[in-house]
C-alpha cells in the first residue's frame, strides 16, 4: 500500500515558471521541424525534463518516444521480437528511431541526459539524423526506412559536454538557469505543491484553467505551423542578408547557423501572429542558433552567450541607416 496520492495527469505546460526561453525554443522546433530540434542545457533542478515532457504531452497527448540511457542497438534501430524468434517465427519490432519518425509529420525523439549516452548510440543517431534514412542491416534484416524526427535532449553540463558533431545536430541550444531569486523559487514551490494536491478526476479550477491554457497554446502553435506549411512568412532578402552577416561575424563554421536562424525567426513570427519576419525575430533566435556553433574558448569549453554578444547582434538588426540624400535606401533611386 502506498500512502501518497498519485496524480494521473501531467504537470501543465502553462504552469512552468521562469523558463520562457526554453518553452519558446520547443515551440519553434514544433512549428518548424526544419529547425532541427532543441538541446536544453542547464544545472540540476531547472525543470528541463519536466518542461520537455509537458510540452510533448500538450502537443501529442502522450509522453514522447524516449531513448533511455541503457538502450541497446536492437531497440534503437529495430530488431526481431525475441519471444517469437525462439518459436522460429520472425516478427519485426520497430526501433525507437522508427517509432519517433513514424507519424505524418516529424516526431520527437526525447533523450534525457543526452551527454550520458554511450558514444556508439550517439553515432547511430547522428547518422540517421544527418541523412534522414534509417539503415538496418543486422540479424539478417535489410531495411532502408525514411524517417523524420527532431531530437529534444536535456543535459547537465557538470557531467561533460557533447561532441561538436552531435551539438551541431541540434538546431537550437537553450541554456537554462536556476530560478533567479527567492520570489521565483517560492512561486515554483507553491505551484508544485498545489499540483500534487490535485485529483485528475475532479481537477480544481486552477488546474482546469491550466489545462485550458495548454489547449489554447496548442491551437496557436498548430495554426502557426499551418501558416508555414502554406508558404506564408517568406523571409525578405534583407532578413537573409542580416542572418548571414550575423553568422559571419561570429565566425561559425558552415552555413547551418544562418539557415537555422532564418527558419527559427520565421517560426517565431508565425507564433507571434506577425505578418512579416522582422529583424527583432532574428535577434531573439540568434543566441539559440549560434551559442553551440562558434569556436570553443581557449580551454575547450563552450562559451556562454554574453551581453557583448547581444551588442554584436543588435548592430546587425538595427534599422537601416538613411542614405546621403536623407532618404532611406529602399526609397532612393
Amino acid at each position: 500500500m502506498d500512502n501518497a496520492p498519485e496524480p494521473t495527469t501531467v504537470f501543465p505546460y502553462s504552469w512552468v515558471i521562469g523558463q520562457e526561453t526554453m518553452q519558446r525554443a520547443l515551440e519553434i522546433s514544433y512549428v518548424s521541424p526544419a529547425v532541427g530540434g532543441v538541446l536544453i542545457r542547464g544545472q540540476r533542478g531547472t525543470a528541463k525534463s519536466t518542461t520537455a515532457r509537458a510540452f510533448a504531452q500538450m502537443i501529442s497527448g502522450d509522453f514522447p518516444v524516449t531513448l533511455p540511457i541503457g538502450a541497446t542497438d536492437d531497440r534503437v534501430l529495430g530488431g526481431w521480437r525475441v519471444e517469437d524468434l525462439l518459436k522460429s517465427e520472425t516478427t519485426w519490432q520497430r526501433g525507437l528511431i522508427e517509432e519517433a519518425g513514424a507519424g505524418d509529420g516529424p516526431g520527437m525523439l526525447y533523450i534525457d541526459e543526452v551527454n550520458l549516452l554511450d558514444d556508439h548510440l550517439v553515432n547511430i543517431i547522428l547518422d540517421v539524423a544527418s541523412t534522414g534514412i534509417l539503415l538496418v542491416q543486422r540479424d539478417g534484416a535489410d531495411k532502408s526506412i525514411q524517417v523524420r524526427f527532431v531530437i529534444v535532449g536535456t543535459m547537465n553540463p557538470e557531467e561533460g559536454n557533447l561532441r561538436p558533431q552531435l551539438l551541431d545536430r541540434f538546431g537550437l541550444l537553450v541554456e537554462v538557469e536556476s530560478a533567479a531569486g527567492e520570489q521565483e523559487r517560492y512561486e515554483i514551490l507553491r505551484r508544485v505543491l498545489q499540483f500534487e494536491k490535485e485529483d485528475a478526476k475532479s481537477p480544481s479550477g486552477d488546474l482546469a484553467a491550466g489545462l485550458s491554457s495548454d489547449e489554447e497554446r496548442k491551437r496557436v502553435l498548430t495554426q502557426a505551423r499551418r501558416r508555414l506549411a502554406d508558404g506564408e512568412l517568406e523571409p525578405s532578402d534583407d532578413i537573409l542578408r542580416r542572418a548571414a552577416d550575423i553568422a559571419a561575424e561570429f565566425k561559425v563554421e558552415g552555413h547551418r547557423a544562418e539557415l537555422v536562424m532564418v527558419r527559427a525567426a520565421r517560426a517565431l513570427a508565425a507564433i507571434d501572429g506577425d505578418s512579416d519576419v522582422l529583424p527583432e525575430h532574428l535577434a531573439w533566435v540568434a543566441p539559440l542558433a549560434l551559442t553551440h556553433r562558434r569556436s570553443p574558448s581557449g580551454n575547450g569549453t563552450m562559451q556562454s552567450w554574453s551581453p557583448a554578444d547581444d551588442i554584436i547582434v543588435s548592430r546587425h538588426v538595427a534599422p537601416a541607416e538613411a542614405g546621403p540624400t536623407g532618404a532611406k535606401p529602399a526609397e532612393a533611386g
Partner: protein
Amino acid sequence: MASPDTGRAPAAVNPSAERVTTILSCVVVDRRIGGVIFIDLPPGWLIHLASWLCRAIAADPARIVTLGSADSEDDLWWRPAAGSAESAAEGGSRLLHRPCRLAEPPHGPPVAIIPDLARASLPVTQAVVSLSGADTAVVDRHGQHVKWEPRTRWLAACARADLGRLSPHLLDRFPVRIDVADLDAASWSPEEFRAALADDHLMGPSSLGPPPQPAGTPAAGRPFPSMGEACARLVVKAVGAPAAPARRDLALGRLARALAALGGSEEVRQVHVHRAAALVGLAVPDDVVLPQSEPAQDPVPPPDKDHAGDQESPEPSNGGGSRDRVRGPMTTAGEPGRFSALKDVPAPPTSAVTGNYAEDGPEALPEFASLRRPWQWRGKRRAARGLIVGSEATREMADLSIMSTVLEAAKYQRIRHVSAPGRGIVIYGADLRRNRRQGGPDTAIAIVLDHTCRRKWDWTDALTPYLGWAYTQRAAVTMVELGHRDPASDLRADVYRADSVLDRRIAASLSRSPGRASPSPLAYGLDLAIQHLRRQVRYGAASTDQAWLVVVSDGRGNVPLEASLRGQLPGPIGREGIDDALTVAAGALSLSRVRSVVIAPPGLAYYPELPFDLAKALGGIVADLADGEI
C-alpha cells in the same frame, strides 16, 4: 510500543533513531520527498531501515533491491528467465527474457538501497539519475521494451568524507540528508544485548521501534495539508535560495507537509517547517522566528531594512501572494532565535546541523563527468581490465562475455538448426559479445615529496601541471613523503596509494610541514616510488600505458639506503646518501612508458648541480620553474 514481531518493548530510542524514524515516516507519507542519504550510517543498518520502511508501506521486504559496486546494466534492467517445460512442448521456449529489479512493472520495487553510494557502479548511478523523481521510465534492451511509472523509494548510505567527491547531479537526487554517526552510540545493557541476540529486528539499544500508525494521512482519504505563503517562503529561505538547487525547496516543503499530515494537521505551520529543516540539518535564519501563536492568518509586520532587497523582487505572474515577511516572538519553551521549539523531535547534534550538503562547500572536489563512461586512451594492446558493467557487440575474440554471446545465439537456434539439424549450439560472428568494462586507471603518477627542501618555498605552482594531468587522465597516484614532521620513521619515507588526486590525503601531503633538521632518506623514497611504478607498469590490474615520476627535491639525500633498510644510522656518512639516491634513481631507466622530472627549489645556494645529476640518473628532466621544462 512493543515490537510487532516479538512483543517485546523496544530498547530506549536515541535521538538519531528518532530522527531516522521521523524521516522514514515522512517518506511513507510522500515518496516524492526524494532519496535519503544516511551519512556515516553504521554498517548493516541500511537493510533494516529499508525493511522498516517496507513494513510501513505494507510492501514485501523481499522486494527490496540492493545496488552495489558490481551491478552491470543487465543486472539492473534485464535477465533471462527459465520458461516452463509445458511452454517448450507447445512450441514455446525454455528461455524467456524478463525485465528485472529496477524495471519491474507497474511501479518498480518499493524500496531500493545503495549501501555505499561512493562505490556504486556506473550503471547504478546512472539508474538513480534516470529514475529518481521521474514520472515515467523506459527500458529498451535486448528486444524488450518496458515502460513503467517508478514509485521506488531510494535510500543510500555514504561516508561524510566521500560526499564531496560524488557527482552533484547524483547527489541532487538525494535531497534529504541525515547524519546518523551516533545511531549505534549508546552502550548496551545486558537485557538489550540478550534481546538483540534473540531478535534480528532489534539492531541494538537504538532500535527503531515499530512503524508508527500515521494519523490523517492521505491514505485515510484526507488530502495533503495545505501550505500557506508564509510557510512556503520560510522553506525557500531555509534552503538558502537561490544558491541551493530548487529540488531542495520541494523536498523540504514536502517534508514539512508530511510532518503536518502525520500530526493530523490540515495545514502546514511554521513549526513543521522548522522541524523539517532541523531533521535534515538546515538552519532557519535567526531573524525568522516562530509567531506569537499559530493563527490561521499569519501576522504581517513591516519589512526589515536588512531585507530591503526582497522588495525589489518582481510581482508574481499570477498577481497573487504577498512579499511580506512573518515575524513575531516565540512563545514555546526555549530561547528565541533557536529551534528549541522542536519538542517532538530532538535537535540533531551540532556536527549534523551544517555540512550535510557537501557538494555546496568549497572543499567539494567531484570527479569530472563521473556519470559518463570514462574515455580511456589505450595503446596498441587491448587489455581486459576493470569492472564489468555490461556487454557489447564485438568482432574480436578477446574478453568475450560468454553468457551474453550464448544468449544472443540462443534466439536463433531453432532457425539455424533447420539447416543444420543435430548440431549443438550454433554461434555466428554476429552473436559475439564482449564485456563492457568500467575501466580502471591506465595512467599513473608517483610523486616523491622531499619536505626538507621546502622551507619557505610554495611548491604548489610547480606541481600543478602534473596534478592537472593526473586529474584529467584519472591517474592512480602514489605519494611518497620524506623529511616531514612526525614521520613513521626518520630514516624512512612514508608511502600511500590513492585512486585519484582528489583524495584528501594528497592535499594534506602538499601542505604538511617540514621537520626540524630532519634527515632526508631520498634513496629510500626513490626506491619506494620506483617499485610502485614498476608494479603498476608491468603487473597491475590497471596495466599502465603512461606514467610520470615526479621528484620534488634538492637532491641532498643524507640517509644511505642501507641505513633506511636497517632502521639505524651506521655513523658518519659523508656523501653516501647522495650516491645511493643516484644509484637507485637509475632503476627508473628500465621502466618503459614512464617519464621522470625533478622539481628543485629555485635559487639553490649549495650543490645546485645535484638536481641535474638526479634527473640524469632518472633519465628525465629538470623542471625550469621560470621558463618551463628544459
